[in-house]
């Protein structure tokens, strides 16, 4: 089991507010192996990003991990304080954020941001770090590195900036990369390049990736396994083939049905009626039951469990064939 890089067990993230405690992430367990790319999908507010932030130890207060554990290659990291977590971030877990336009500090040259990160995590001198920064920039596909290393972020296009962000995430050869919507803010033509780049770099290095996105296309292209989230819970986990071709959970089925396809000649896109419940208004039983066409009495009473295996589905219908 030594190749399990990330092991999240029963993670629960809560936001105490004046009106009561909101549970943004509820009882999530997942594992990512070395070199594996796990796609996390779900609608906005399903808790995907929140799970990523919890792993990075960057939940905005008052958000906090209320239960569960996070292990990184066997070391428990969820109970570390900020000071102890700081060498883990960047060094053992790299991060890529959604918007490359705002991820880089506008007032520092990209080279300086790379050198800063490299120096923080390695024993290299400034000059060596600069050489390494150039290597990384070449590796992520930035042309004319010698000139561009002293450019400021605003002098790069969005795609180029996201390449820099990827280089920053790879600075210290981390074991895990948390990529939070890495392509959402980019042009479609650039998205594919960035996805392919990320995939190639992680395969070469055996880096585990948690790819948070709501873009099923990106997932289908990149991920090995997929975890589907709904209202703070995992509803289905499986290989990308299973999820795309044979989704078991009605929500996953709906999600797949709502992807536009150029090949299939479908008159109208299916859509899931209604919207995801707010965090303070999650129904009893399965959170999806009000929108589910097949929901039965049990779905409104008991919360289905997804189990602990590498694949699974949290649905009474799929598990037991009946939900009455």
């Amino acid at each position: 089991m030594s190749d399990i890089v990330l092991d999240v067990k029963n993670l629960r993230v809560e936001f105490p507010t004046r009106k009561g405690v909101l549970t943004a992430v509820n009882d999530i367990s997942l594992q990512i192996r070395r070199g594996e790319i796990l796609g996390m999908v779900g609608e906005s507010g399903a808790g995907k990003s929140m799970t990523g932030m919890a792993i990075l130890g960057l939940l905005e207060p008052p958000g906090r991990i209320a239960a569960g554990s996070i292990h990184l290659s066997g070391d428990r990291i969820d109970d570390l304080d900020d000071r102890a977590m700081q060498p883990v971030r960047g060094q053992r877990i790299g991060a890529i954020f959604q918007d490359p336009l705002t991820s880089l500090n506008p007032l520092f040259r990209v080279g300086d941001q790379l050198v800063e990160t490299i120096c923080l995590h390695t024993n290299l001198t400034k000059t060596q770090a600069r050489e390494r920064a150039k290597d990384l920039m070449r590796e992520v596909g930035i042309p004319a590195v010698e000139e561009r290393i002293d450019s400021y972020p605003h002098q790069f296009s969005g795609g180029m900036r996201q390449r820099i962000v990827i280089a920053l995430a790879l600075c210290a050869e981390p074991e895990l990369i948390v990529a939070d919507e890495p392509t959402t803010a980019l042009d479609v033509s650039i998205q594919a390049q960035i996805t392919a780049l990320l995939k190639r770099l992680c395969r070469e290095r055996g880096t585990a990736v948690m790819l948070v996105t709501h873009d099923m296309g990106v997932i289908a292209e990149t991920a090995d396994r997929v975890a589907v989230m709904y209202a703070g819970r995992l509803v289905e986990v499986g290989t990308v083939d299973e999820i795309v071709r044979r989704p078991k959970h009605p929500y996953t089925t709906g999600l797949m049905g709502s992807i536009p396809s150029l090949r299939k000649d479908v008159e109208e896109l299916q859509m899931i009626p209604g919207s995801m419940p707010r965090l303070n208004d999650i129904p009893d039983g399965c959170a999806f039951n009000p929108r589910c066409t097949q929901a039965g009495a049990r779905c409104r009473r008991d919360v289905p469990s997804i189990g602990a295996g590498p694949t699974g589905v949290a649905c009474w219908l799929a598990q037991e064939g009946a939900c009455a």
Partner: protein
Amino acid sequence: MIAFLLKRTANAAFVMLAVALLAFVIFRFFGDPVEMMVNEQATQADRMELRERLGLNDSFVTQYTRFVSNAAQGNFGISYRNQQDVMVLIKERFPATFELVLVATVISLVVGIPAGVITAVYRESRLANMLQLGSIVGVSLPSFVVGILLILAFSVSLGWLPAFGRGETMDIGWWSTGLLTPSGRAALVLPAISLSTFQVTLVMRLVRAEMLETLRADYVKFARARGVPARRVHWRHALRNCLMPVITLTGMQIGNLIAFALVTETVFQWPGMGMLFIQAVTFVDIPVMAAYLMIVSFIFVALNTCVDITYAWVDPRLRDDTARAGGRNG
């Protein structure tokens, strides 16, 4: 960058011409300069002759042009009151005011910026609350009250620091500085603190507001995510992004400080330009007042221009030439 500098300088020159017009109009039309200069026995012919000699019969435009070209050479005429060259008077007084303002500005930045960062980053801490409370006191108390309280505490009760004057000064060329002598430095402490009280709180509140904004930015979170220690993120990455408005404020406020130093100067009997102006007002000494107006606005305009140029230096995005040179490809 050169085009940018030229544009800024041209703007500044235009503003100065407008101010000069104002100063000239005041000088020319508020009271008759001839009446001020001659004694009661002067005949009408004497007056006419003086009027001709001073060029007061020339056209408005000619007179204005002459005023501007004189002013540009630092010639503001003769003070009515002590019959001295106005520029000489100002030259004597300016160093005192400038040093006072300089020290007050340094205090406001050195105290205000860290206080602002602390109150923004450690919002709930006791220190932050105390600083916040102190800043309310600082904003509310007029500077002359602060000055009087400081005199009461440190000069009258404790006897540590002088309550008035500039102490000994040393001359470096025409510049007389109090910074190089112990008594000069001691004399500077209380007025500078009193002048800076308001500034400190202003800078602190501005930095706090900006920091709160910046700390929410993605690049701050991303800097944390790539393992930059919190302290470095706050004091380097976030603070630098907050400095733009602080530079503006400080630049603008130096002008204000020079202008409003006259209150502090009066309280501490500080022999600066403010005192000179107060005396000029009392005696309707128009050349001095006009010169004061010109010089203070010159400082304002020069500072604004410097602030704009500093912007371009701090924020690479405002250097229009680099944006073009960089090119874009994706």
